[in-house]
């Protein structure tokens, strides 16, 4: 699909003749990929066919499953939407300004990638519990975070932030500040310059960062279950319901939920790829 149009055939022949290892490399890659990823994943889809379409639909549309799927997707959507402006703020500050300890702060942005999700989960739960450092201040305001859907959003904010920042930051760095300066000399205010010059160039990256954070949030488990409260119909996320069904030996039910999540996640992933390729083919972004 993306092979260069100019003589791929002739290129391939030359490359094969000179550099060895194509057969071995591709063979091993495909073997390992099939054994670890492709066969297990297809097995899951095939197992779900055992259910039959009618039964599959019944499982997926039980109120408890619907509530869990709705919560997982809804909370991930809200968290990604909140992460968008704040991620943009952090990316902007890191890309454009100089300030003390910038390198350290830049490294901190990746903390959610590096910190195990279970550790993040118990830490957030402890922070926002009624007696925690944050919870104790939120309690008089009647804001309950721990053990409510709001807690789920907080956990997904934590998990999703680096996706937004790391997608926006390189684009902002590549964007020439001179264009904004030109806008400024033409009498545009800083905000006008940002809204009319920067934002239009940024939207593919914004959309990609949003989609990445959203996709990660939908499947997130470790950081959420400690703070969520996990009450069926109220604060039970879809991955947790899969675990619950497995513990009850309801493999069919667990598989049905998994298949719904997989289909949506793969669709999201393809959309993200398409988005990025489209952003690349836009002239003048580099």
């Amino acid at each position, binding site marked *: 699909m*993306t*092979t260069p149009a100019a003589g791929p055939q002739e290129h*391939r022949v030359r*490359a094969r003749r000179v*550099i060895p*290892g*194509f057969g071995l*490399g*591709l063979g091993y890659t495909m073997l*390992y*990929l099939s054994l*670890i*990823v492709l*066969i297990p994943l297809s*097995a*899951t889809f095939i197992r779900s066919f055992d259910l039959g379409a009618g039964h599959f639909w019944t499982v997926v549309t039980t109120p408890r499953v619907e509530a869990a799927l709705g919560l997982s997707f809804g909370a991930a959507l809200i968290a990604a939407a909140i992460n968008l402006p*704040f991620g943009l*703020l*952090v990316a*902007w500050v890191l890309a454009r*300004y100089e300030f003390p300890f910038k*390198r350290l702060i830049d*490294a*901190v*942005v*990746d*903390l959610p*990638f*590096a*910190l*195990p*999700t*279970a*550790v993040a989960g*118990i*830490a957030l739960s*402890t922070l926002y519990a009624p007696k*925690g450092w944050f919870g104790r201040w939120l309690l008089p305001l009647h804001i309950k975070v721990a053990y409510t859907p709001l807690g789920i959003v907080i956990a997904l904010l934590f998990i999703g*932030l680096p996706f937004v920042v*790391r997608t926006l930051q390189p684009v902002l760095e590549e964007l020439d500040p001179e264009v904004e300066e030109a806008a*400024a000399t033409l009498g545009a205010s*800083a905000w006008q310059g940002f809204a009319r010059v920067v934002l239009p160039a940024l939207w593919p990256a914004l959309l990609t960062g949003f989609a990445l954070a959203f*996709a990660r949030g939908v499947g997130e*488990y*470790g950081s959420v279950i*400690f703070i969520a409260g996990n009450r069926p119909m109220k604060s039970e996320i879809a991955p*947790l319901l899969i*675990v619950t069904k497995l513990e009850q030996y309801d493999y069919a039910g*667990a*598989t049905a939920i*998994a298949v719904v*999540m997989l289909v949506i*996640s*793969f669709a999201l*992933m393809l959309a993200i*790829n398409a988005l*990025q*390729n489209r952003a*690349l083919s836009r002239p003048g972004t*580099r």
Partner: protein
Amino acid sequence: MTGREAARPKHGSAGRRLLIAAALLFLGVFLVMPLLVVFSAALSKGVAAYAAAITDPLALSAVRLTLTVVAIAVPLNVVFGVAAAWTIAKFEFRGKSALLTLIDLPFAVSPVIAGLIFILLFGSSGWFGAFLQAHAIRIVFAVPGIVLATIFVTFPFVARELVPVMQAQGKDAEETALSLGASGWQTFWRITLPDIRWGLLYGVLLCNARAMGEFGAVSVVSGHIRGLTNTMPLHVEILYNEYNIAAAFAVASLLALLALATLAAKSMLEWREPQLGRHALRAPDRTRRGQA
């Protein structure tokens, strides 16, 4: 960069300070505080209790299991990553971008589902369940299952770091070595590998951090048998659910230290090799176009 900095108009420096303050406040509240609470809670019952929690035999067996799993999963993914990157970067073939997408698949899968797929294959009612039972082989609810689930969730890390590095490297050096009579393996060990070592280290670092900290996938396949199939994150969960909060955070603090060490090493590598990690969240096509 500094030249540009100087040339930039000075207006709005108050706004600039406000934006920096807001960004730092946001990062402080949402990222740094959770990290601080880990260490604070870990030491809340004193240093002696902390030491007791991390030298507890069950904690030590969890550490041992986590290290064992990582020692198997990471090298396997490194071999795969190098093979995949070699194939993708050095050759043109049909379906290359489809292959890249397939390699990224595990990142789109919820950790819980990553565990579930191995239960469906190797569990007692799974495809190979009867066969495994007949031969008394345990995969699920045992160490092999934990290793498999860990390999699955860390599958793309090394490959997706190495593909752009090898693409940027081109193939002139290899072609020269080969034309001078070096064998394929000699070329790989003496030319390719030294050239990609920092990218490889970077990928290993990320792969290792995720492998040690994986929770959801491992939790599904582990069976939570104490002293036998409990990794460090699972041990943290059990202690926490037993209201043994200080001990849970003590073990968690070891994982948090690992995360900090990973971030430090990662920053140092990025400082040394600025192109590393810049592509981590983007389609690999971009880097290919970038060097064209």
